[in-house]
């Protein structure tokens, strides 16, 4: 009798636990609506979501690929961005896309006062900036998105 009663008390205790567990867990489900979603089910949808989230760059993978396609095979591309910030991940994605095309990638900190000289030292064929509007020294700027621009680089 005692065993049976003890069993019943245990069942009640665990039922209350699971009720609280499920209740507290379910409360957080309202966060789902606030989470970022992919825009479509295209093969680069996660990269696109990242470009949009960090750079307000729509259809990012395609636009980056189109820009990289303008560069000669084996050419050099410089990424101008702030390392260690939200710009790091899109910078890595662009690096990967460039690497797939056989391009060499160099990075220059966007906050450097001599950024222009540092970029020129790499003698690139093209430059991306992930730090907002394109600098005035970009020779043929294409604003890809709100915080991302690309330019072919004229070597002097």
């Amino acid at each position: 009798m005692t065993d049976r009663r003890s069993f019943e008390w245990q069942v009640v205790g665990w039922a209350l636990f699971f009720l609280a567990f499920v209740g507290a867990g379910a409360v957080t489900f309202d966060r789902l609506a606030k989470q970022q979603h992919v825009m479509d089910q295209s093969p680069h949808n996660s990269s696109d979501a990242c470009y949009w989230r960090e750079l307000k760059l729509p259809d990012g993978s395609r636009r980056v690929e189109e820009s990289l396609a303008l560069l000669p095979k084996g050419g050099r591309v410089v990424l101008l961005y702030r390392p260690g910030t939200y710009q790091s991940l899109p910078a890595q994605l662009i690096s990967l896309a460039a690497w797939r095309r056989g391009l060499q990638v160099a990075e220059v900190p966007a906050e450097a006062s001599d950024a222009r000289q540092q970029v020129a030292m790499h003698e690139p064929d093209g430059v991306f900036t992930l730090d907002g509007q394109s600098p005035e020294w970009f020779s043929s700027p294409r604003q890809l998105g709100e915080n991302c621009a690309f330019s072919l680089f004229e070597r002097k």
Partner: protein
Amino acid sequence: MSATLLLVAALAVIFMAGAAIFRSLAGHRTEETLIAERLGLSWILGAGYVSLATFVAGFLVKGWILIALISGGAIGLFMLARKCRTFPRAAGPRFSLRDWSLLAILIAQAWFILWWAPKVPLGYDALALWEAKAQMAFAHSGALPVEYFSNPAVGWGHVYYPLFLPYTESWLYLWMGRVDQAWVRIIGPITYFAVVGILCGASQRLGVPRSAAWTGAASFFFVPYCITGDWGAFVGYADLPLGVIYLAAASRLPEIGSQGASSAAARLFAVTAGLLPWMKQEGFYLWLILVAIAALQLPEKKVKSIAVLVVPGMLIAAMFKGFLKVVGTAPDPFYRPPTWENISRNADRIIPVFQGIGQELLNFEHWSFLWVGATVALVILLVRRQTRRTGMIFACVVGAPLFLFGWPFVLSMYVPVETHMQLALPRLVFEIAPVAMLVIALALPRRVEQESKERSETR
């Protein structure tokens, strides 16, 4: 052929290889394992086979030859495993209304996950580390080139991270013939279902009644971090995959004590635990913990018996670490080596770090009452005489990693370390969340008749 069909074929090879390895290891006890657990284990073992085979064979062959070689190996394993004799499983009790209700809940949860997961993009580490490596491997017809490990072409760190996940992803890409970030996320839901399947099967295997076992498995859905966490189950991180392997291996520990090193449980333990170092760096330490507990469990502590438990993991870890050493991979720049000097230099971090771990376990927005429940469950298991041994095993299985996870933050080179903890600690805790859920299921009340049966079996 459409990419979707090719993806199905790639997954079929994984499951076929995994099922064959499971059957070879479980032998005549195959049927004793619940089908849901077998499917979960097939995923783990199959993905382990494919990724390891890609690592080994990928340096020699590429592209379609690599696909043919690995698929041929899977078929060979399947043919061999078919020869293993198995005994039919004794029919369990009939489904009660409660069982049907729980099954309906599990199916509804699965439906929700299949609807929700495709909306979630891959997260930071998934894109920067795991999937990026898969893309690079795919670009090299299946496997990363040797030069990558000594001189990565682009500025990513973490070259020394193991390749279970990247090579499973590149396997899918190789079959599909293209990089596909939409389909590769299928790994998340499959891993989640593997957790649920193994929770159902392992709990029942360890004596929990069906409805209680399924209650535990269905409750995992309500661990907030799993579904709504920033780096939860569906963002392509390696933490839940590591967690499911840890769960699968740890759930075999109680059986090793009673059945010995020559048992199916010991073989399954050794191989599943052996995959831990291949999934993530901290997996090596989780493997050490499990192997130490398993060795202590053995009725006869002979070198041969301990070797059975240790060899698979040691081989895998030694192979990868040896390879990195040979090709000259730079050491991990983010942590100081665990020397006494480094620890004493950062001694002022020890208390805040472990306070931080305690606070994380009580973070209800991440874990609901999971850790409160797991603590109560462990106390119950330890207090009850007939479950004391199981309680001690799982106290170590849950407690030792929590203790160990503090030290990387003590030795971290990230500044400030609080930010590092904020970013990484929930993910480390997530790795042992499945096993914590198993602990809760094990402590659920059993009818008096069942307990007396267990008591007589213990005697």
